[in-house]
């Protein structure tokens, strides 16, 4: 994953609250490998009618090359499906600006270089009003944690750990490898002091459960 500090792109408003991950990518599109691309599935049922015709009023159908989405509270709540982030990323979205995000979604976003920028509800509403139905060029700066759209400058909140991660594009598995010794000693101590945390073996072969034994 490539890191980034400054992002310039088209911003559009999607003034809807509670856009959950089931809406971001409906479950029926999730049985395919990432290599096939998830962009077409993004907000599928909001973007296409039942026979697959694009819905003209939908902002993401009206504008090309959208990189920044401004929306309402609780964006990405619900399921932990990282495919919701893949759909946004594959569509070209690099940042979502909203008053609140689902916790798991936000973590998934950062793991894929997508910024979940939290702003005050008042400021999200002002941005939504300013954008209206248009797309406007915007700049996001991770160094200053600021979004600029036209004359507006809005500060956003971002966990410092996530900020560093977005800027560096670090992969956690590599980072964790540097703690290999600490992990090994933790595991050894846990095995010694709390051996009960390791699962017992399934009794016998096949299906011979405690519950089924009790039933007899």
């Amino acid at each position: 994953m490539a890191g980034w500090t400054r992002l310039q792109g088209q911003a559009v408003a999607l003034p809807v609250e509670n856009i959950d991950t089931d809406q971001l990518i409906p479950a029926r599109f999730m049985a395919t490998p990432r290599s096939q691309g998830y962009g077409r599935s993004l907000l599928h049922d909001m973007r296409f009618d039942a026979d697959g015709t694009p819905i003209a009023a939908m902002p993401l159908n009206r504008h090309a090359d959208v990189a920044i989405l401004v929306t309402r509270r609780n964006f990405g709540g619900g399921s932990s499906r990282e495919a919701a982030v893949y759909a946004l990323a594959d569509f070209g979205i690099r940042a979502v600006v909203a008053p609140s995000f689902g916790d798991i979604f936000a973590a998934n976003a950062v793991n894929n270089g997508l910024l979940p920028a939290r702003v005050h509800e008042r400021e999200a509403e002002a941005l939504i009003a300013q954008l209206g139905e248009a797309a406007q060029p915007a700049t996001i700066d991770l160094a200053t944690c600021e979004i600029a759209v036209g004359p507006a400058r809005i500060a956003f909140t971002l966990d410092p750990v996530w900020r560093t991660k977005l800027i560096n594009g670090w992969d956690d598995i590599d980072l964790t490898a540097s703690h290999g010794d600490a992990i090994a000693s933790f595991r050894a101590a846990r095995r010694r002091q709390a051996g009960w945390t390791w699962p017992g073996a399934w009794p016998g072969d096949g299906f011979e459960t405690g519950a089924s034994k009790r039933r007899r």
Partner: protein
Amino acid sequence: MTAAPRTLFDKLWQAHEIVRGDDGASLLWVDRHLVHEGSHHAFAKLAARGLSVAQPQLTFAVADHYAPTRGDGAPADPAIAGMIAKLAENARAHGITCFGLGDPRQGIVHVIGPQHGLTLPGLLINCGDSHTSTHGAFGALAFGIGATEVAHVLATQTVWQRCPRTMRITVSGRLGPAVGAKDLALAWIARLGADGARGHAIEYAGPVIENLCMAGRMTLCNLSIEGGARLGMIAPDETTFAFLKGRPYAPAGAAWDAAIEAWAGLRTDPDAAFDREVTLDASEIAPIVTWGTSPEDALPIDGCVPDPAAAPDETSEQIAAALDYMGLRPGQPIAGTPVDQVFIGSCTNARLEDLRAAAAVLKGRKARVPGTVSPGSTLVKQQAEEEGLDAVFVEAGLDWVASGCSMCVGMNGDIVAPGKRCASSTNRNFRGRQGRGARTHLMSPAMVAAAAVTGTLSDVRPLLKGRV
């Protein structure tokens, strides 16, 4: 000098912290990692880097999200069959125990974890599924993670996390008849909002919680995520220990004694402080149903849906959109709304106790609408059949099917048709969750049974008079 008082959450967090980075993120040890068909992205990430699973003996796989519930068990759709086959293949390649299709240990991951004794107090449990919060009912630190994190846990048996804030929900008073954990959960979510507990680890406490059975505790912790919480938990007690003793993977003999000793300390110290305290009076809670497209859109069965015209400007548009999607009139009473079908199932409410509660309403009655009952696991199915619950459902006219996530998430093809209204014991009434255009009303299994019997959203209490 005495140690500072700590919450249950603090104790669990500290017990799993391997290192804390300068930036405040903690690297935590994962005691149990549960994977399912949706974990294919994570296995693909491992394969791409040529990594193997660090601790296969702490990792368990189960087919649930795509598991077929009808027919001879073989999914007709090649994409669905492929998802299930891929899981078995990945499990085999990495030496992970897999409860696949046809295995009597198969079931919904959050039902079988506790049932098989894989879920224990004091463990850190991860799964690539948001309802992993369910396992917190046992006093475990259990939370859902995304695919990148699943790959990380597979590769290292650890997970990086920022410590969430703590919140205690204390429930006092007494639950009324036919009011249970589902109603409690929807009540607090309606009050605080679907993001009301965002960034928090919840501990549920108080006399009402202590009196809940494990199934009820699991329902409550399961729904923590619907209020935006990172996780939910309940301090383990005798009810917890009695549930676990003798479970196949639970500790036995000397290991059980050691575990009991460790578990005794898993409670919040008397003076420990939470970042946030919320109290609920159970006596004020009636059976609850949802009317809209978020779990926060919930109200008592004797209530009326909101009227956008009477709502403040900032919410009226949202309410109008939800009513439009749900096909409801502003201000109408929710009771009496005709339903097209019912569904009893999911990791929220498909345990034996849930099936018993629904059967108590349905016994000797006919359902006026079609419906499906999918038990939480293959073992729950067997147990229910031994009690004759299957006959109650079948005689009422409902379909008794195999176990899986089924119509809660619609991945296996069990869906609600566009525009159809479903009374559902599940966890999400999101737009399109049960199928495109599906209208979902969440409620307890007993309330779903009441909807089946009357054909409308109905108060279950009169139907239980003289029965319980």
